[in-house]
Structures are given as structure tokens and as C-alpha cells.
């Protein structure tokens, strides 16, 4: 061991050669490194952890208490778990992504990364993978906590996976569109406000059936409502793949992602 140490000492300092040997790494290696960094920063940031993990679990607990308002269902927890899952997806892929990316833009992180061998697609890919991994973590915690509170899912829930992925792309596209076009401070305020509004008016915390008919006919096409509605159909009612919800989310994704790619300003 001492020999290795001595080698390092001579290699450092005087002996290091700067003879050029440039080149980009392989894309999968870059993607893995980028994903790891994005995920590490998400989990290290207290606000992100609060938004994406703590608040959903707290809401899962409180909405399950029968003192707030009636959900029109005998088993509150069977309604609450799909709602909180939809909320968690929105928190991670819209609000969290928008705020994180907005400040990265503000502090020239994206500019600096733009001057490296990292292609933009791999940067976006790393963010996407990090959000998806975060969502697996969220789903594990929320479902685990739900089961502890007596949740009985109506189906195995694999039909929920396409919904969550489509929701991630729809919300992620909207989040990047917001982060890439306005100042970071406005992104911060807007992303939180939209989160709050969609939580209550977007079919997550309050069933759309409790709104007047015309209002719910419009609101159900919000991405939050489509995701929440789809997850309820799968997990609460066991109704197979909810096509309308899935198509609604895919349409949002198809509008938001190209718009984000087009209007995103990197600095």
C-alpha cells in the first residue's frame, strides 16, 4: 500500500501530463453518470424531498382522516392512495423538475453543461431517468404506507405503469416548458401555485364527480385529472386500461414536449 501511495504522490503534481487526448465517453456511461448526479441532488435537496416524498405521505395520512370532507366513498383509503400517487407524479415530474431546472438555468449550470461533450438528449434523458427512479421510490413508500393504513388495491396495478409513464412525460414537458421560458423565481412561484391549484381543482384531492357537471366535463381533460382518474379506475375500481385517461395524457405529452424543445432557452 505504501508503494501505491508513493506512486500517487509523484504522479500528482509534477508528473501529470496534459498532452491532449480528447474525446467523448460512450452515451450509456454518460447517461448513467448524469442520472446518478441528478438523483443524488434530488435526494440531497431538502425542498425536493419535502415536495416529492414527505408532503405526499403527510397528505395520504390526513386525507385518510374522515374529518376533512366526505369523499363519497365508504373506504377513504382506496380513494386516497391513487390520488396521492397522481400527486406524487405531478410533484416530481412537474413542480420538482421545473424548479430544479429553472434554477440550473439561472445559475448557468445548463450553459456550463452545454460546453461539455454531454449531448442535450443525454442531459434530458438523465433528468427523465432520475425522475422515474424517484417515482419508483415514491410509489413504494406511498403504496407501502397505504397498505399499512388498510388499502386494498382492486387490481395488481400493472395497468397503472403506462399511465404513470405518460403522466411523467406530460408533466415533465410542461415543467421544462415553464422552466425554460421564464425566470427561475417565476418558475418557483408558478410551479408551486399550479401544484396547489391542480391538487384541489384538478381532480386529485377532490373527486371531479363532486363538481358541477359542466365544470367536471372540462376539468377532466387536465393532465392531473386524467392521471388521477386513470389511476382510480385501475386501482380503486379495477376497470382495466383506462383508454381516455391514457390518450389525454399522451396528447398533453405530445403538445408539451415539442413545445419545451422549441422554446427552451438554455441561458
Amino acid at each position: 500500500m505504501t508503494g501505491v501511495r508513493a506512486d500517487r504522490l509523484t504522479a500528482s503534481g509534477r508528473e501529470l501530463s496534459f498532452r491532449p487526448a480528447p474525446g467523448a465517453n460512450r452515451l450509456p456511461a454518460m447517461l448513467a453518470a448524469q442520472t446518478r448526479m441528478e438523483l443524488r441532488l434530488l435526494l440531497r435537496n431538502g425542498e425536493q424531498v419535502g415536495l416529492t416524498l414527505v408532503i405526499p405521505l403527510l397528505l395520504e395520512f390526513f386525507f385518510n382522516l374522515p374529518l376533512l370532507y366526505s369523499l363519497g366513498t365508504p373506504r377513504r383509503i382506496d380513494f386516497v392512495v391513487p390520488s396521492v400517487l397522481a400527486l406524487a407524479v405531478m410533484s416530481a415530474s412537474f413542480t420538482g423538475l421545473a424548479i430544479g431546472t429553472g434554477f440550473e438555468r439561472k445559475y448557468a449550470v445548463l450553459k456550463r453543461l452545454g460546453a461539455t461533450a454531454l449531448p442535450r438528449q443525454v442531459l434530458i434523458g438523465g433528468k427523465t431517468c432520475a425522475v422515474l427512479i424517484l417515482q419508483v421510490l415514491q410509489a413504494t413508500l406511498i403504496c407501502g404506507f397505504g397498505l399499512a393504513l388498510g388499502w386494498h388495491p382492486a387490481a395488481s396495478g400493472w395497468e397503472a405503469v403506462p399511465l404513470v409513464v405518460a403522466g411523467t412525460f406530460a408533466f415533465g414537458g410542461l415543467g421544462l416548458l415553464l422552466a425554460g421560458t421564464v425566470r427561475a423565481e417565476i418558475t418557483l412561484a408558478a410551479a408551486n401555485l399550479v401544484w396547489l391549484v391542480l391538487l384541489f381543482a384538478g381532480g386529485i384531492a377532490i373527486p371531479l364527480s363532486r363538481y358541477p357537471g359542466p365544470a367536471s366535463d372540462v376539468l377532466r381533460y387536465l393532465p392531473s385529472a386524467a392521471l388521477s382518474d386513470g389511476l382510480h379506475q385501475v386501482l380503486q375500481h379495477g376497470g382495466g386500461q383506462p383508454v381516455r385517461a391514457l390518450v389525454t395524457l399522451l396528447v398533453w405529452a405530445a403538445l408539451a414536449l415539442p413545445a419545451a424543445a422549441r422554446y427552451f432557452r438554455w441561458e
Partner: protein
Amino acid sequence: MPAAAVELDGLVKRYGDRAAVDGVSFRVQRGELLALLGTNGAGKTTIIEICEGFRVPDAGRVRVLGADPVADAATVRPKVGVMLQDGVGGYTGARARELLELFARYAAHPHDVGELLELVGLAEHAGTQVKRLSGGQQQRLSLAMALVGRPELLFLDEPTTGMDPQARRITWDLIRRLRADGVSVVLTTHYLDEAEELADHVVVLNAGQIVAEGTPAELTRAGASGEVRFSAEPGLPAAELQASLPPGARVSEPLTGHYLVRSEVTPQLLAAITAWCADREVLANGLTVERRSLEDVFLALTTDRPDTEPAGPATGAGARLAGRAARR
């Protein structure tokens, strides 16, 4: 013969009505270190950001390693290391080592991250979050991030701003070693000594235009480049001393017993002055040498004094170079 490291031809960049860069052309050969010298707002950063592919010029041609930095970004970027002007420009929540490791993973043949951290004097701060590093430490991390992929060309935008003198020395040594190992470097600075110490070629910018360029020696040598002062007994024959000195030297006695020799300052000049004094048994006291520094040149070039010749020892060159500026 590989293409030049950087080639700019007639570069123009406007922001609104103002031309931040107004017809700049220069060439950086492979393995050369070029310093862009100028005050704030002279156009240094705009030029370097055009070279980095962040900005598109309104007119003119840019070639970086023989390619277009915007259209051919995918081929150019892996070969180029960049140090942005303000701070690290990386994930500030990451630790120093994590951020450098991430940048190493973008490269095919990266340096050893630990060695590089040690080299820039950050080994002890490897576990510190980037946002908790001091300004000078962030600059050094930023330099390590620029180097880690073994680039063949480096763009360093004010690399030593915010560093203490010791860190500055370390950085200068490092930049010299990069150059010695064949890395081409373009750096911007408003420190004249930095340009004088490091650069093979200096481009002096003022208001978006090149007002002078050359090697540091050429820039400081141009014209009457210095003066020698000494005191001795009053009334020495100035004309006789002048005749014994190299051509072009002018001797005067501005104050009784105080002598001033204006000339290009060379060892031969000093030898001739002291020999002349020795021949006459004259003791020259308080002999001081003032060479014209890049600072004199810079001030003469970038201080706006329209229609008046700069005064003092820089007169000759100042007028000549200012004349060049006026022609542009």
C-alpha cells in the same frame, strides 16, 4: 498540417445598436497561448462565447479546430475545455469531487480526479459542497473541470479573477504546463501582468476592436520603452553621456544632480551608463530602471484621449498604436 486552433475573420456581434465586437480577426496557432486583454465591456467575453458556440456572430467567420463551433458542436465540444467567467457553472449542491467526477465521465480518457484535485489545491475540499467553496476555490475547481477531459484547446474566461496571489501563482504554473504539453489556450484577462507572464500573443481590445496585438515583448518594446534615473554630482555633461550610449538614448538633467536617460532599456545601456560614470570617477546613486510595462501600453491604448498625444515615456508607441486604432 492541422487547422489553426482558432481562426476569427471579421467578427461582428451587435446587441441592439451597440457593436460589442466590431470587426475582430485573429488566429491562434496550435500550441499557442493567446491573451485577450481589455477593460470590462471591451468585448472579450463576447468573443470567447462566440468561440465556445454560445453566441452566433452577426457577421464574420469563426473556426475552432477547423470547424464551426455551432454547426459542428458535437465534434468540437469534446475537444475543448471551457472555464466560464462567473463561478463554477455546475451543480452547486454537489460536492467538489462529485462534480469533477461527473465531468470526467463525459470524457473518453479523463484525468484521475484525485490527482487533478490535488494539483489545483482542492484535495482537502473534495467533500465540500461547491456552493460552500470560496470564490477562488470555485475558480480552481472550474479550471479542473475544464482540464479533466484532456482537451486540445482551452477557453479560460478571466481564470484568476477572485484568486489570492498564491492561488494565482499555482494557476499560472498550471497554465504554463498546459502550454508546454501542447494545449492551445485562449484566455481573457484584465490583469496586464497575467498577459505579460503567460501569453505568446496578446490581443488588446477596446470597445470591440483590436487596438494592438503582438507578443508581450513586441508590445512593450515598441517605441521609447523605458527610462533610467540616477543622481550624481550636478552639472555632468549630458551630451557627452548621450554620445556614449546606444543610438536613440536621450539624456537630461531635469533636476539639479538628477539625471534621466530615456531609451530602450537593455543590459548594454546600463553597462554603458555605469562605464561612463566609472571613467569620470562619478558615483551614480540610486540608479533606477523603469521598463515600459504592458500596463503603460494598455493605458495608452484604452484611455480615451482624442486628438491629444499621450504624454510621458509611452509617447512614441502610444501615438503609433493609437494612430492604428484611429485608422480602423
